[in-house]
């Protein structure tokens, strides 16, 4: 399966041996160009500015900034980049969380080389890819009832600021994102919690101990 256009790939993993191994594998494929191999999410974000990667392969467990939070930041700053999680964790919670944060694919580190290539090609073509073990995990358990959809880190930050009485503009300035992005987050928060009004959001944040009533 070859593609006419080269896929620019950025790899982010804090284990040097894994990083080396994956680079070595990908370099043998002509239509894939590794534009960067870094060991922290911050470095990946910095590098993405200059290289505009098509696909970012991201580990979850990393010191400093976690891979999941990095996914959310990538989605905000580089919407054109597709995120492919590369992880040792095969539990459903990791996978569904990654999807919620905006990942397009999720593969386990122990999959075969050909599967890695297939995953890169799929997400680059705007598809979603889950490696076989991951798909099993997703199928094993249906969605949960009772627990509200968990908020992402960004959504929780936005809710906290909104509950403290900040306007969309203030929130945007505070988090260094666009007002539109803030609006999107607010919409998602309201949908997830099933709350329609700002007052309701504030009430919810107080009731659940996110902020103290005295604040």
């Amino acid at each position, binding site marked *: 399966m070859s593609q006419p256009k080269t896929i620019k790939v950025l790899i982010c993993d804090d284990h040097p041996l894994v990083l080396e191994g994956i680079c070595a594998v990908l370099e043998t494929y002509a239509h894939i160009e590794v534009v960067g191999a870094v060991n922290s999410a911050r470095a990946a974000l910095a590098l993405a500015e200059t290289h505009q990667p098509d696909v970012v392969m991201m580990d*979850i*467990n990393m010191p400093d*900034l*976690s891979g*999941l*939070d990095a996914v*959310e*930041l990538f989605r905000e700053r580089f919407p054109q980049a597709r995120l492919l999680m590369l992880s*040792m*964790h*095969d*539990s*459903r*919670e*990791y996978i569904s*969380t990654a999807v919620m944060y905006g990942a397009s694919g999720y593969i386990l*580190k*122990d999959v*075969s080389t050909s599967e890695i290539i297939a995953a890169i090609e799929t997400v680059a073509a705007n598809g979603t890819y889950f490696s076989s073990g991951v798909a099993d995990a997703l199928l*094993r*358990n249906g969605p*949960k*009832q*009772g*627990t*509200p*959809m*968990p*908020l992402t*880190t*960004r959504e*929780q*930050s936005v809710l*906290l*600021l909104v509950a*403290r009485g900040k306007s969309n503009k203030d929130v945007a300035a*505070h*988090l*260094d*994102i666009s007002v539109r992005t803030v609006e999107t987050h607010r919409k998602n928060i309201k949908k*997830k*919690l099933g709350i329609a009004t700002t007052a309701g959001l504030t009430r919810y944040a*107080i*009731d*659940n*101990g*996110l*902020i*103290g*009533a005295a604040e």
Partner: protein
Amino acid sequence: MNLRTQILAIAILPLVLAILAITALVTFQSTQLARASISTFERNMLRAKESELLNLTNMAISAINEIYEAAGPDDEDAKRQVQEILSSLDYGPDGYFFVYDYDGVNIVHPRQSFRHGRNWIDMEDPDGNRVIYNLIERAKEGGGLHQYKWEKPSTGEIADKLSFAVGLDKWRWMLGTGVYLDDVFAQTQAADADLRSNINTTFITVAAITLPLVFVVFLASFMLTLRERRLADTKLKELTQRVIDTQEEERARIARELHDGISQSMVAARYALDLAAAKVRSGAPDAPAAIERGAKGINGAIREVRRISHDLRPGILDDLGLTAALEALTNSFAERTGIVVELKSVAFKNMLLPEAKTALYRVAQEALTNIERHANATHVRIVVTSGGGGGAQLVIEDDGHGFANAEAARTLGRTHAGLGLRNMQERMEHFGGTLEVKTASSGTLLKARLPKSAYVTQTSEFMPA
């Protein structure tokens, strides 16, 4: 001064003070009483002596009365007769009558004849008392008592003396007799000495009671301290042993898993790769199959490592938070046991301190282990709430048969390999929280609460941008 010494001082000091106060009071009162009775005794003795003197004087008067009445003022013959009678009147070694004329010249003194015929009007006793002059004055006044010091004939020593003097005015004579008071004073002095020795006895008695008492208090507190320390030591030893046991068990388990699982997979992979190498060298065509078998073995080892690592510390707790970790836990629990688990949790994460989060997770894990092993339940309900004022709460409810009988409770608390109820409680108490367990034949309800202090201080910086 440490706390123990302070407590001891607080216990002993009031005791000693109270005993001292009581002793002082008792001593003061008994002294007062004794002094009063001594002075009463002295007064009574003196009064008895006075009436005795009066009687003696009356007796002497009546002995000489007939002659005196009949005689004239210058009847020397009658005077001589009276002198003889009075000289011979006698009661005991120190009892006698004396006569001086109003000028102070001695006329009768049966014990001290050297006084006879000489004037003693200016004689003074050791206290400066003009003895004869005063006696004559009493006599002139019609009779009266006078106390002074005089040489006691029987002993030759100066002693207190009380005398009664009457006047024979016709002859200008003073007739007197006296008693020595040294026996009275000796008795009061003896009573005084008694009193002093009584006080001494009281003090010795009090000391004899107090000292053993203080000693007993000391001893008791010392024993208590010793016992407490021994108890604490025993507890510490038990705890240490428990920690060591748990650690050893855990190590043994990990060693077993490493050896039985990963080692075997790796060994198999190595054989497969060795085989592949041999095949490549000999140019055999089926080398790729052997290599794939090796890769499969390595993948098995990777899965094993992932499972063991997850068992040791669920990374999901740190990466995705308590809710996700509980979801993973209940999912695998439901899969393994077939027990239906309903989980209701909060939409937030990163609200609890990492250690507090771990504690709640371990409580849930332990509760589920207990339910699986003992409860025989079909449904479990786990609810996590986070309240504005009340902190975090984890409620785990099952419809099993509970562990109402003491046997099961003991088993849960101590012996089985897991953490046990006691450890759950310790974990909660460490954060100032509580663990509440209600068990009945219709199910068990476990409530773990953490206070607000177990929360992270919330800032908007959930995610550094």
